[in-house]
């Protein structure tokens, strides 16, 4: 039983990570029908932003690892990620808004490679910052990292709490933001019909920027959670995580925020359960990706719109 609970928590925390990133894919897709493949790199940049914040704070505090570093790191990571996403939207995607669909897609892949290489080659050149050509240990912040916590005989990794709490808070915030604020309602309107929204006086460009920014902020939180949970970050961490999160978004029904969360959690759970409970030749951690994608294919065959379908009306 303890083993099962361990696997459940592994799956949920991995799934929560996917879900936080998947929201960024889904929000942007819902509004501009663009699959922003550079989003995985925003997740990576968020983690590096948080690391940089900690390093800069360290110049004043002498490398303190007290708990209050964490909120500052989160804010720092989010700022850097949001800034990157907004600049990316302004200079790479907006000029291509009315271009054929493949053009922004290729641009997205280009930006993704650019951002990876930029961090890999440039990050270590900044005085006082570590070389990013190989994995960098993520700062060990008191309270958020360290020994597993004993909850009624069950040892639970602190990163697990952090990441699941992050997802719950972000999900609640998103629900409030999309449904209860004027901006959120404007986002829904734009996703349903951008032309009519514009006629109704909604600044569509602004809404698109907000969609990118919200996705980036969540991805940055996921980046920090990755550092806390797994203990290190590197320049290419966004690639596979981005691919998995994209899968999660499609699994849950791309364009649907709840779908991204459900898709992410499902994917994480399938990975961890398949790795631990499928016996013999096709079991074990090495096969987890195979089972995750087998599930994706099955779901798309029988339910092409994804688990929760597309809540957002499809323009096409």
């Amino acid at each position, binding site marked *: 039983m303890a*083993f099962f609970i*361990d*696997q459940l928590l*592994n799956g949920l*925390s*991995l799934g929560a990570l996917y879900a936080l990133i998947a929201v960024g894919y889904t929000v942007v897709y819902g509004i501009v*029908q663009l*699959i922003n*493949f550079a989003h995985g790199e925003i997740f990576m940049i968020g983690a590096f932003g948080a690391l940089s914040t900690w390093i800069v704070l360290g110049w004043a505090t002498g490398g303190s690892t007290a708990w209050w570093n964490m909120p500052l790191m989160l804010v720092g990571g989010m700022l850097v990620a949001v800034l990157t996403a907004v600049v990316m939207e302004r200079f790479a995607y907006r000029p291509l808004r009315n271009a054929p*669909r*493949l053009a922004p*897609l*290729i641009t997205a*892949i280009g930006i993704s*490679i650019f951002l990876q290489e930029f961090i*890999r080659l440039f990050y270590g050149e900044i005085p006082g910052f570590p070389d990013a*050509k*190989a*994995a960098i*240990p993520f700062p*060990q912040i008191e309270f958020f*990292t*360290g*020994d*597993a916590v004993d909850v009624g005989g069950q*040892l639970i*990794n*602190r*990163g697990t709490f952090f990441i699941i709490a992050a997802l719950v808070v972000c999900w609640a915030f998103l629900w409030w933001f999309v449904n209860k604020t004027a901006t959120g309602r404007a986002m829904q309107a734009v996703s349903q019909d951008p032309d009519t929204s514009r006629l109704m006086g909604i600044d569509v460009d602004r809404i698109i920027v907000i969609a990118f920014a919200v996705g980036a902020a969540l991805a940055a939180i996921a980046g920090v959670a*990755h550092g806390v*949970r*797994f*203990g*290190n970050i*590197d320049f290419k*961490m966004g690639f*596979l*995580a981005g*691919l998995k999160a994209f899968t999660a978004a*499609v699994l849950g029904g*791309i364009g649907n925020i709840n779908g991204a969360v459900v898709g992410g959690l499902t994917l994480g759970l399938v*990975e*961890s359960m398949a*790795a*631990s409970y499928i016996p013999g030749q096709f079991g*074990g*951690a*090495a096969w*987890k*990706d195979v089972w995750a994608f087998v599930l994706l294919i099955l779901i798309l065959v029988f339910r*092409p719109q994804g688990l929760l379908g597309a809540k957002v009306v*499809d323009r*096409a």
Partner: protein
Amino acid sequence: MRNKKLLGGAVALLSASMLFAGCGSRSEPAASGSAGGAATKVAKIGVIAPLTGDLSVMGLGIKNSVDLAIRQANESNAIPGWKLELAAEDDTATPDVGANAATKLAADKDVVGVVGTLNSGVAQSVQPILNSANIVMVSPANTSPNLTQGADLANPKRTYPNYFRVCTTDSIQGPFAAQYLFESGVKKLAVVNDKKPYGQGLAEAVATKFKELGGEVVSNQTVNKDDDDFSTVIDLMKAKNPEVVYFGTEFQLAGPMSKQMKDKGLAVPLMGGDGIFDQKFVDLAGAKSNGDLATSVGAPIESLASGKSFVEAYKAAGFSDGFSAYGAYAYDAANAIIASLKKSLPSASDASSARQATIDGMAAVSFDGATGKVGFDEFGDAITKTLTVYEVQELKWVAKKTGELK
């Protein structure tokens, strides 16, 4: 409908981008000074190692150490009438990029020998290319036994006459680790590997020997080389209560694994091979890595007089990166090639005509290198079978026991 097509296209594009991600090679400009007198001819020693990417720490150490050996040979005018130059190529630890690098070096008529590769998997694709060009290849770090003795280890057969190595192999390193663990009282061992030729070969060798000695291998798992999350594997091992976890891989996976093990309450030592024997492992594994173990080939560099002088010369040369786990081996590998060149070059009219004679001369090479006695047996394997177990103490690797496989 349009969206489905778009998704299909996106997936296709993405997989294409994954394919191409492995291509493209970067080459470092060869470190060279101005040529000496008009009469000096140039011969180049190539390096094929990962100069960028995850393993660049080790690759740059190899490149710099070869550079050091070449500079010293030029300063002492080791081969009268000839000047040696370095031709370093990046293999990004990827077999196909390594093959491109080998093709490029083979096409350069001045290249007389190559030091490389770091990864056994890359060596497999480099060996045949250099062999058909008759270029001697000396690896500082390949530990897969198949590279010298062929696929069937029960009936060893030398595959490529141009291939030599200065380090011991997994068929010795793995059993040595198993022997050390068993003798220090460990009875239950968990084995993990990353499915790369190096990690898998090593983990299998450890498991086989450990069982043979009478120990119990309670868990045998694999992970993917791009994994960040080892939670599931750790839980599977934890359920079997191992006393030590042996992980066949390199430091960039082993560090996080050690950290996550201890964070999850599996507080037993992690052990690995020479691939984790780097300070980077300790950096990634964090404060709880004390007690983790690694085997590495040879005796500790600091324990040999020749090793000490290598360390001092390396420091004095002012390289920006450290020599890492394989620097001393790369230095010895380069010096082994230079030793053979001393005989083959003076009588040769140009560098490419000396290639075959350089390979033939390798069997006679014998000297005291930075890592101990350097020389090769009939398969091209190192004659020295010494290994050392290192332990992390106060977040530094410390030599614990040097010995040979019984």
